[in-house]
C-alpha cells in the first residue's frame, strides 16, 4: 500500500502545480464572492445577462467556474495517478 503515496520525481512538481492552481482558484473565488472583489467588480445591475442582473449573474458565473475548476483539478490529479506503474487499473485517463 505504501508505494501508492510516492509519486515519482517527475510527477511531484505537476501535482504540486495542480494543488497550487486549485488553491489559487479558491482564494480568487472567495474574494469574488465577498468584499472586496464582488463589491468592486461584480456588484452592478447592468449589463443584464440572460435576463439576470449582473450582480446575480456574477455569482452564477462563479458556480459554473467552480465546477470547471473542480473537474480540471480532479483530472490533473488522476492523470498523475494513472501514470504511476501499477495504478492504471480502473483509470479513465490512460495515457
Amino acid at each position, binding site marked *: *500500500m505504501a508505494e501508492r503515496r510516492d509519486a515519482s520525481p517527475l510527477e511531484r512538481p505537476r501535482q504540486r502545480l495542480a494543488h497550487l492552481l486549485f488553491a489559487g482558484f479558491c482564494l480568487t473565488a*472567495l474574494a469574488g464572492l465577498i468584499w472586496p472583489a464582488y463589491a468592486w467588480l461584480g456588484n452592478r445591475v447592468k449589463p443584464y445577462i440572460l435576463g439576470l442582473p449582473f450582480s446575480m449573474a456574477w455569482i452564477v458565473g462563479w458556480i459554473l467556474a467552480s465546477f470547471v475548476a*473542480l473537474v480540471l483539478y480532479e483530472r490533473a490529479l488522476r492523470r498523475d495517478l494513472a501514470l504511476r506503474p501499477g495504478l492504471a487499473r480502473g483509470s479513465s485517463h490512460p495515457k
Partner: protein
Amino acid sequence: MNNQTVALLVIAVYLAACLWAGLRPSKDQSDSATGFIAGDRALGPLLMYFITGATIFSAFTFLGMPGWAWSRGASSFYILSYGVLGFVPFLFLGPRAARVGKHYGFVTQAEMIARRFSAPYLALILALITLIAFVPYIVLQMRGAGVLMRLASGGALNDAQGIAIVYGVVAVYVLKSGVLGVGWTNVLQGVFMLVLAWGLGLYLPSLLHGGIGPMFEKIAAADPDFLLAPGRTKSGTPWNWAEYSSFVLVSMIGFTCWPHLFMKAFSARDERTLRKSVILYPSFLLFQVPILLLGFAAVGFQPAPRDEQDVLPHLLLSLDLPAIVVGLFCAGGLAASMSTGDALAHGGASIAIRDGWVTAFGKKLSPHRERTLVRWMVALLLVGCWLATIRYGTRIVDLLVFAYGPITQIGPVLVAALLWRRATAKGACAGLICGIVISLWLTIAPELRPWPLHAGLYGLTANVLVLVLVSLATQSRNPKADEEFLAIAARSDGT
C-alpha cells in the same frame, strides 16, 4: 373534482412514490448498524450525488429563500454564494474520513473524532451539540411541510394532521430501509425538486412580468439598490459588507460540518465516488437560481403577502393557478422538506445511539441490537419534533440561524482530527467549547461585537486559537495511536 382534491391527489401520488422508492431497497443491506446507518459502505455515485444534494436543500430553500429575495433583495445572493466553495473542504476531509472509517469501522463523525483523540467524552459532547441543532432543524422541515399541506388542502388539514401524514411516510421508509431508504427517496425527491423549481421559476416570471429580463428591469426601475449587494436587513435598512461577507464565510465553513452530511463519507463505495459528489455538487446549487426568481417575481405583487415566509403560498393562491400546478408545487416543497428531514432523523438517531451511548460510555451492543435501538430513536425523534412543532413552532429562519451556530464550531476540530498530528483532546475540547460559548453569546447580544461581523466568525477565531494553544501546551493521550490514525487517513485507495 374541486381544486383541493386535485392538489391532494397529486401529493398522494407523490407520497406513494416516496414509499415505493423508500421501501424497495430494504433487503439490500445487512442486518446490522453499519448496514442501517452507512449502507455497508457500498453507495455508488448516483445515490451519493442525490443524498448530498437533496439533503442540503431543505424546506428553507423552497419557502425561506423566496421570502429573502422578496423582502431583502440582493442580500439573498449570500445563500447562493456560500455553496460555491462550501463543499470543497469535503474534497480533502471526506476521503480521509472514509479511509479511517473503513479501517476502524466508524459510521459517525463524532466517533471518528473521539477515536482520533482517544477521548470518548468528545463523542458525548458532539452528540449533544448535534441533537440540540437537529431538533430545531427538523422542526423547521416539519413546519414547512405543515404550511404546504395546509395550502394544498385549502385549510382542511391543520398543521398537526398535515405533518403527521407527511412525516408518517418518512418514518415508514427510514425505519424500514435506513440510509438506503433515505438515499433512494432522495433520488426521487431531488429530481422532483429540480424539475419543479426550474419549471415554476421560469413560468411565474413570464406569467407575471413577461419574462426574467423584463421582471428585473421593472424592479431596478422602481428601486435600483434592491438588486445590489449587500442588500437590506430584515427591517429594510441597508445591510453592510462586513456582515454580508462574514455570513458567506461562516456558512461556507459550517457547510461540511453538518454531521448528517459528513457521515455520508462513511457510506460511499470508494474515494472516487466521494470526490465525484463534490465535483458534481455545483449542478445542484444552480437550482437555487429559479428559487430566487420566484421570490423576485413576487416583488411589487398586490395584494402584498403579510409575511416573508408566506410569499410563495400567497402568490400561488392569489394567481388562481390550475390546481395541478399548486399540487405539484406543494409536492416539490414537500420533497425538499422530506429529503432533509429524513436524513436528519436518520442521522440524529444514529448519532444519539452510536456516539451518545455506545462510544461515549463504552457500551457493547450487538450490531442487530444497535440497529433496533437506532430505529426506536428515529421514531422517538420524529414524534418529539412533531409535538415540538405543534406546540412551539417559531419562525423558520430564526431557527436555522440558531441551529447553524454550534455546528460550525465543529469545523476546526474536524480539520485538526484529520490533518494535524499535534492536536490533543484537551485542545479540541477547549476550542470547541470556547467557540460555541462565544458564538452563542454574541448571537444573543450582538451589540457586544467590536465589528459588525457574524457571531460565528468570532467563535471560530477563538476556537482555532484555543485549539492550537491548548494542544501545544498539552500532551497527546496516545501518540502512537495518533500516528497510526493519521497514516491511515493519508493513504489513498487508488480510485
